[in-house]
């Protein structure tokens, strides 16, 4: 009479069960933080893509929601950084004299490059980042940078080495 075995193990997680069971929960979690549904839907898709691409085997995931939230948080921060970059970019575009405004395709290309570089520079201390930008974009010499930042030329050189190393360690 006792031969019906009741398994105490939850059924093994797969990407499709993870997606089916948690997607709408994750989307509403994201929506509360973003304030709109379409960005939340985008970010939730991205979150699942990251999970799919990550090394962690889905089947062994203990707390799927906690894991999704960890990944989702990281994407949220990136999302806000992209936003603030776009905003600064649009304001800079609006400030250009009309004759200097690049064509629409050009605007996109520039924005894409800016986003990639912005991500690349992320995590650098503010002064290092600024010194590096002055050197790369404005072609300023170390002496000028040192004067502007009120530090020694030797420090500027150290900043540059730090920035280059940071960038070279990331895959371009």
């Amino acid at each position, binding site marked *: 009479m006792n031969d019906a075995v009741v398994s105490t193990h939850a059924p093994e997680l797969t990407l499709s069960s993870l997606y089916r069971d948690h997607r709408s929960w994750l989307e509403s979690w994201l929506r509360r933080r973003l304030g709109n549904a379409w960005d939340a839907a985008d970010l939730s898709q991205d979150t699942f893509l990251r999970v799919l691409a990550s090394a962690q085997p889905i089947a062994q995931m203990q707390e799927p929601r906690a894991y999704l939230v960890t990944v989702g948080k990281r994407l949220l921060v990136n999302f806000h950084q992209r936003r603030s970059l776009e905003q600064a970019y649009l304001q*800079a575009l609006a400030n250009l004299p009309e004759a200097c405004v690049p064509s629409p395709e050009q605007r996109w290309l520039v924005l894409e490059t800016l986003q990639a570089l912005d991500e690349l520079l992320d995590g650098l201390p503010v002064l290092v980042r600024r010194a590096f930008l002055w050197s790369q974009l404005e072609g300023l010499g170390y002496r000028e940078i040192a004067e502007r930042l009120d530090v020694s030329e030797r420090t500027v050189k*150290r900043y540059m080495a730090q920035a280059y190393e940071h960038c070279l360690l990331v895959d371009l």
Partner: protein
Amino acid sequence: MARAAAQWLALLESGAATEHDHAALQHWRDSHPQHEQTWQKAQTLRQRFSALPQALAMASLDRPQPGRRAVLKRALGIAALVPTAWLVSRQLPIEVWRADLHTATGERKRIPLDDGGNLQLNTATAVDVDLAQRRITLVDGELALNLPGATAMTVQTRYGELSVSQADVCIRQQAAGCLVSVLKGAVQVRDRNGQVATLQGGQQAPLKAGGLGAWVPFDVSQLGWRDGVLTAQNQALGDFLRELERYRPGVLRWEPSLENLRVTGSFRLDDTDRILNLLASTLGLELQARTRYWVTLRKAMS
């Protein structure tokens, strides 16, 4: 290896590298294929930077950063308002028949209408235009409408609507209400309670939730933005800067002691940096710019 390459790059760009250094670098690059590969990667990086339009890239990448922790806090906080979607496509020219038009901070636009009139948008303004219905909705900001023709156009604001024909009018919408200034002709105003009143050329009146306020005569130079000019006549510096701020993205601050200095002059709105420089030199002030978007005015030390 990245560290070694980075040290080389920093040395080369310092301008202090000797011939001996160059030879040593060449040796380093030749000594291992991965050294050369890292070196090439660095060159690619430099090219990506140098291919960018300088001013745009600098303003975008060197924007005032709230810092990672603040970003994280904001990212994880519950959004209080639906944030405006910042889409580049909204910046592109749009057909005028039925369109949502808007200007960014510091931008102004003039849109010719089919009947010889024209619509001008001041800084940070959004309107919906429906020419088939002859209706313009002022969502936010300030517009000027010059209509020589007899067919009326309706301008809808949050506080009521205006019927404009053979007239020149300017409407600025703010949180507390609109300011309606009629330059030429006459404009019919219908408030939210359905009360109708007429404003004549030379009259200016507030339109609020409670209706149209009493009119006063006004000075046309207040509306100089239509010609791209900001005019001040013996105006308090604080008032002038608050007005100027509308045209500048970013943060503009000044010492409280400067509030009541007097300003007189006409300034081109195209270049607000130049206005600030002019003010600084005529009033003996010092401009401190942390970045282009973070400017502080203070008394010059002498």
